[in-house]
């Protein structure tokens, strides 16, 4: 037991160091882009995981929060010249409140009714923004190009600063989840996922905790929206509220394995490069072959690896443990 603890600690430190140092050697802009996407989607997957993996409310409409967040900061910046960092924080607060309000009715739904409601939410938000003249309707908003730097949250010469900001976000959310897993909040979340009746019988106010979960998830997702807006320097409904964002987020978590911290990170680290690379190699002209591969990949995962990568890891661990025990029995 002590041994595995030590190895996992060493592994953790190595992984942290690698994620900080190795990217410094990545010079190709496209590779940097992939790194940025990996951390961004790891955070998004983590936010989904709080709601879907821990509380068991499967959302396929995270783009609603993502898009809203991207527009909050962008609009404030374009219209009032407000610093994107303030926009970033406000995006988090506003989408969290939005998630809470939406959650009031929606968290009463269960299972697929909830999932479809989130799809509906995503579609409604997209249509609203497509027709909202004030925020540029279908054309969206262009962010003003300003001097690059941490203060302006714009970087032009290299994409790496975005990567590190995303990594910091990931670090913070991982710390939060690590704490959550060991606190009442995490236990209550899981209890609600496992059995709502038992949760209620244990004195848990399940409505309240579901609302907390959706607010946290929405807030983080909204901040990620700001992040992508600053990265692309424009927002547009078709881009920010795209249904594929919602699907990809859910897939990352599922592919990696839900209900644990490592899953979404693994999922993002593997799925995003595949999707970005296949797009770059084969699909830049819109032939669709990249998404074809992606779709086939999803099907294969669901059929052959439905527990996610963490499921595989757990199986291997269990087998190893069983082997050790068997050996122990012989001695």
């Amino acid at each position, binding site marked *: 037991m002590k041994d595995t603890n030590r190895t996992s600690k060493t592994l953790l430190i190595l992984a942290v160091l690698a994620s900080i140092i190795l990217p410094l050697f990545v010079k190709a802009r496209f590779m940097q882009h992939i790194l940025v996407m990996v951390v961004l989607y790891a955070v998004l997957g983590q936010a989904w995981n709080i709601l879907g993996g821990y509380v068991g409310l499967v959302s396929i409409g995270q783009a609603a929060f993502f898009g809203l967040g991207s527009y909050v900061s962008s609009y404030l910046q374009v219209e009032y010249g407000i610093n994107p960092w303030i926009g970033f924080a406000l995006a988090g607060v506003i989408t969290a409140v939005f998630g809470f309000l939406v959650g009031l009715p929606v968290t009463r739904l269960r299972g697929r009714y909830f999932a479809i409601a989130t799809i509906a939410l995503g579609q409604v938000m997209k249509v609203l923004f497509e027709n909202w003249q004030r925020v540029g309707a279908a054309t969206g908003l262009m962010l003003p190009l300003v001097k690059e730097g941490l203060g302006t949250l714009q970087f032009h010469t290299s994409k790496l600063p975005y990567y590190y900001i995303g990594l910091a976000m990931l670090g913070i959310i991982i710390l939060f989840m690590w704490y959550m897993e060991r606190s*009442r909040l995490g236990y209550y979340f899981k209890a609600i996922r496992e059995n709502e009746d038992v*949760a209620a019988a*244990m004195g848990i*106010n399940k409505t309240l905790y579901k609302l907390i979960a959706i607010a946290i998830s929405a807030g983080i997702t909204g901040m990620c929206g700001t992040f992508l807006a600053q990265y692309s320097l424009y927002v547009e409904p078709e881009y920010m509220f795209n249904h594929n964002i919602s699907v990809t987020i859910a897939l990352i978590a599922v592919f990696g394995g839900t209900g644990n911290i490592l899953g979404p990170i693994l999922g993002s680290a593997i799925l995003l490069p595949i999707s970005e690379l296949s797009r770059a190699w084969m699909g830049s002209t819109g032939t669709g072959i990249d998404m074809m591969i992606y779709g086939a990949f999803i099907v294969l995962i669901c059929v052959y690896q439905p527990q996610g990568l963490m499921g595989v890891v757990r199986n291997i661990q269990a087998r190893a443990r069983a082997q050790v025990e068997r050996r122990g029995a012989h001695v």
Partner: protein
Amino acid sequence: MSKEAKLVVTGVTKRFGGLLALNDVSFSVESGEILALIGPNGAGKTTLFNCLTGFLKVDGGTVEFNGRNITNWSPNQICSLGVARTFQVVQVLQGMTVLENVMVGAYLRNPRTTPAREKAVAVLERVGMLDRADVLAVNLTLPEKKRLEVAMSLATEPKVLMLDESMAGLTPTEAAEASQMIRSLRDEGLALIVVEHVMEAIMPIADRVIVLESGTKIAEGSPEEIVSNPRVISAYLGDKYAKRVVN
């Protein structure tokens, strides 16, 4: 745990469409007392539990806890107040370990993790399941799950505990252990309402018995009074006891 507590049920009525599942049921139970609730299948025992703990809304009548009207409060509020229950069809948090299951209950009075874990360990020790602490609940046997459910309820530090057929399916030794446990909970000052079909197990420890039939309370009294009540015998005990004796 030893604070005085009293649950008073007055005229509770519950309908499922045309079916009158509970008809004007009244009784009370207080600290240091074991109230057995018996009645044939479909009599409405589980429905009564559901009404008292907020899982079903009553159509009439009131439930009072220590003078406070808690009728139709939500289940979590009722539990927070100190009224806990187990389910007839055993319900545990399948994907979590035994310890985690009990911790979920313990968090109600211990918001921080360390005391919650200590509390959970203490409860597990008490019900004799500490050696199973790290097992996933899904991997437990049915009697173990039932015991876990009791442990979870106890971890919420209830003043009134309602057990719905917690002894069903136990071996005689296990049932005797369970009876012992129920008795010691009473001695600590809990009020217990126990639904049980296993008469041999419940009658010796009950202080008072109420009998439901088709949603109506047909008798109430000490175990001796109940087993000699002609109405009860004809409605419920008669043929059952007879059969038991034959077997």
